[in-house]
């Protein structure tokens, strides 16, 4: 295993130490592993927290700050954080207007956030939770764990953060989060596996001419293994299922989010973005906003994901609102 780390079991703790040294505007609890914006709780403002396994950086820690998350709970690599972290984060950001939990749909995340919500409620905090499940690679069904929460999570955190900053109520912010989830769809692929530090070897093996289509963000294999193909073809394999799922239709205005799984460089993301733009133009779908870069990753995995969010004026306005976090900053 080749990584710029010390001991595998110290990866999360040391990355948090580095974050604290690099970003004095964050307050970090190194025992519990909770990252809080230093001016929290902002009184009268809805608090927004998220969390999940580490290894997806900058998600979620890098999105803590003005206009986005009030706190994040990083678990071990690819392992859901525990209720203690979530409870501490919830209390730290409760400014009296209640707290929204943005939860990615993974069994562990959901169960731990549920427990935390029960505990917070018992302590008299007004908590609402929205579970993000935007991954079209997984067929939805009430008999299964359902769809995974992936790219739309980043967009939900930005948009809900802006709404909370604007003084919207917990109910309004929750509705916006549900709207982003209802109108956002994603799909990803991997060109290489990634290596969980504590595991020490790649989670799966992939031939030199193979890719995994329909992956999540935990280095797990996808739905299907295919031969690698040109960017145009690969992009179509991601965009078609997304567009037909919602569906996205001619005249729709969308935000396009082209994301690196961690090891794919920006030059390739722009080639993919170019293909996405052409495919959407063919379908009469108008790109209003875009985000291109590594924002929700699987360690050093090479690959990408595409997320489309159908926009309305309110979502667009909230997307454009100022944000100031380690990983996403504009207008401030």
């Amino acid at each position: 295993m080749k990584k710029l780390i010390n001991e595998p079991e110290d990866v999360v703790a040391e990355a948090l130490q580095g974050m604290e040294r690099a970003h004095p505007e964050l307050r970090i609890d190194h025992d519990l592993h909770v990252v809080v914006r230093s001016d929290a709780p902002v009184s009268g403002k809805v608090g927004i927290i998220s969390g999940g396994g580490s290894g997806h950086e900058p998600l979620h820690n890098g999105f803590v700050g003005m206009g986005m998350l009030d706190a994040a709970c990083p678990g071990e690599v690819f392992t859901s954080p525990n209720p203690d972290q979530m409870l501490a984060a919830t209390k730290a950001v409760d400014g009296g207007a209640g707290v929204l939990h943005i939860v990615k749909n993974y069994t562990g995340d959901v169960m731990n956030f549920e427990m935390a919500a029960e505990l917070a409620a018992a302590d008299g905090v007004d908590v609402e939770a929205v579970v993000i499940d935007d991954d079209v690679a997984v067929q939805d069904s009430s008999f299964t764990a359902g769809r995974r929460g992936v790219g739309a999570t980043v967009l939900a955190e930005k948009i809900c953060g802006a709404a909370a900053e604007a003084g919207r109520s917990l109910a309004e912010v929750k509705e916006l989060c549900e709207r982003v989830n209802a109108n956002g769809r994603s799909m990803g692929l991997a060109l290489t596996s990634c290596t969980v530090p504590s595991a020490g070897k790649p989670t799966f093996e992939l031939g030199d001419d193979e890719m995994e289509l329909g992956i999540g963000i935990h280095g797990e294999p996808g739905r299907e293994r295919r031969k690698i193909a040109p960017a145009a073809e690969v992009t179509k394999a991601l965009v078609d299922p997304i567009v037909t799922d919602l569906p996205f239709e001619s005249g729709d205005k969308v935000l396009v989010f082209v994301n690196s799984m961690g090891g794919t460089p920006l030059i390739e993301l722009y080639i993919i973005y170019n293909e996405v733009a052409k495919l959407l133009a063919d379908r009469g779908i108008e790109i209003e906003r875009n985000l291109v870069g590594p924002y929700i990753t699987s360690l050093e995995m090479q690959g990408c994901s595409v997320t489309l969010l159908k926009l309305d004026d309110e979502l667009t306005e909230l997307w454009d609102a100022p944000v100031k976090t380690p990983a996403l900053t504009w207008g401030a």
Partner: protein
Amino acid sequence: MADGTTVTIDDLVAWIHRFSEVITEHAEELTQLDSAIGDADHGTNMRRGCRAAVEALAATEPEDVTGFGRAIAMKLISTIGGTSGPLYGSFFLAFGTAGGSTGTLDAESAVACFRAAVDSIAARGKAEPGDKTMLDALEPAVAAMEAALADGSSLGEAFERGTVAAEEGMHATIPMLARKGRASYLGERSIGHQDPGATSSWLLVRSAAETFAA
């Protein structure tokens, strides 16, 4: 020292020590299984949780079964995280509640505690046998224990038959198509792999048998 007819607090503590040992032995294997159909952390998660549980027991010796269950549950929940944290956490929470404020369990009450524990995993995880989860080892195990007692077997025999059933249930997950947990994302590709959680659950039952029956 267990006498094979009753379970004392010391036996319960010994059970956790033994479970921690075998989890540490099998950690790499569990992570390997989780690599195939999950995210390669089950062994690491369980080892971290078990070690913390053992430390917790060293710090404060529980007074009764409820105290034991609560102590272990809280530790597992706050150190494992992931899916297995809350699930094994509810297991021990329910185990303790069912046991009540006593210091010894006879065969019937020990198995009753196990039943309550397994049911709480089913309740929390909303999984059923056949979904390719821990339950595929735990449900047959507790059923076998109950059957054993009905046949008048001893506590020790009951847990031994439970272990055999757990192991069979664990192997039975191999051909299953996962409907719950991470493996469900793989759809058809989940077939042909043994479920890591069912494997750690088999170790949980086995280490109970090893300590209670001895």
